[in-house]
């Protein structure tokens, strides 16, 4: 599975949204993306990519796009 697929799967699983909504997902657009959703999402992503996000990164993980940028900082090619 490619990294981008892994990331998309994490969104589907973590936020319980359909695949077609993943790319446009933001904290404001997804109902379930509250703190519980955020935690669940971050936990899945950390496990999937075997990385540990910094406090600031966890907090800035507020959209699919932002997530891509954060992963790039961890040298993950998307």
């Amino acid at each position: 599975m490619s990294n981008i697929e892994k990331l998309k799967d994490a969104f589907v699983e973590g936020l319980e949204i359909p695949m077609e909504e993943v790319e446009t997902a933001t904290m404001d657009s997804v109902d379930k993306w509250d703190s519980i959703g955020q935690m669940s999402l971050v936990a899945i992503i950390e496990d999937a990519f075997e990385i540990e996000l910094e406090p600031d990164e966890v907090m800035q993980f507020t959209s699919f796009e932002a997530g891509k940028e954060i992963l790039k900082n961890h040298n993950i090619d998307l």
Partner: protein
Amino acid sequence: MLFDIDKKPASAMAAIDDAGGQLTYGELVHLRSELATILPERELVFCLCENRVGALGGFLSLYDCKDVCLLLSAHIDKALLKVLDETYGPSYYWMPEVMVEERGYEIVYDFKGFVLCKTGKKAPELHSDLSMLMTTSGTTGSPKLVRHKYGNIESNAKNVAKVFGWTQEERGIVDLPMQYTMGLNVINSHIYAGATVLLIEVNLMSPKYWAFIKEQKGSNFTGVPFSYEILNRLRFWKMDLPYLTTMAEGGGKLSDTLFKTFADFAVEKDKRFFATFGTTETSARLAYLPPEQATTHIGSIGHAIPEGQLILVDQNGLEITEADVEGELLYEGPNVTMGYGTCVEDLAKGDEFCGVYETGDLAKKDADGFFYIVGRKKRFLKLFGLRVSLDQSEKIISENFGGIECACTGDDDQMLIYITQEDLKDEVKKLISEKTGLMAKFFDVRVIESIPRFESGKINYKALGQ
């Protein structure tokens, strides 16, 4: 006046919220006197709350004017609000100004983004001791109310302020909702002390949250187990928060691992970690573990707060005095409320608890006199610290699908929902997730042939677990 608000310096800040709102003790005194001239005593007011200075000012003033408030979330499920409105028939609402239009009431008074509205209904009969109402259920929001009496929140605020040693210098971070018993207790114990509360709506995972508490020099934090899960996930110990000196936990049992992590962290960073225990029925806190005992009594709820007493009883109701013997935990103290309410007639009832509350929790006491919760007699779960009633969940599911058979059990990690119709599996999961506002992964829907029952017709929950 309530909490001697009128004796605090008028210019001292009682509350600051993360939308820029500010409320001084002087403004509280003024608001109270204004509302006293507008509103007769003993009105029934639904307070639709947000962690905003306007919501807090309204509640404290209405309380002190001897009107009875039911605290609800401003974001409450519309259908549930309708049920509550029809059940109790409030004569007034205190709510965010932006909500007036949808409800179409006449505005009587406005204050910092909140308004007092008249519904046109006459207040129901309210018992003279009835001081306020709160809902028991964090998430399923069953219309079951807890009837508080005068003296409940006053004594709990005083005793909790004493436990923590709050002074007027304290700046308490309140992101727990004010309509939630522990959130309100954090607020009240600070107001009692003449301190400042920092009311927060944005969530712990937001950079705005941390910017706000840094800028406002938040000095203590109170969280439910879920808050601590988040802090753990955020690698909280990496943050530089020199003003934050006290961390308190309550509203559910922290895992022993997290308990130890935070107890150790507090020792290392010279902060205080307080594990506390409370229920809505006891106007929040009833026990606490002194911070110096935290690392040596992992998982303990400590002992009773001042003026309170914890008692363990066996199945025959006899007191257990030996150490390490399990029994049901009872609490006796001035913060024990009067009882429940499920219909408007109940609001006229007097004290049914009579100062003693059976927590429904099974506990034991160690040789040092510290209590530990070991299980639960009552039918509810705490999913991430939010109380979810199993009976109410069953009712919601059954009613939404034409009276289907349904049984709910589980533990604090996940609710197990048993139904008999395969085709409803996904819909049931979706419904209960929506109604509780919790992720669907907290619910495991299982299809079985039939729901096991005793001859009496009651569900045999033990048989479900097999």
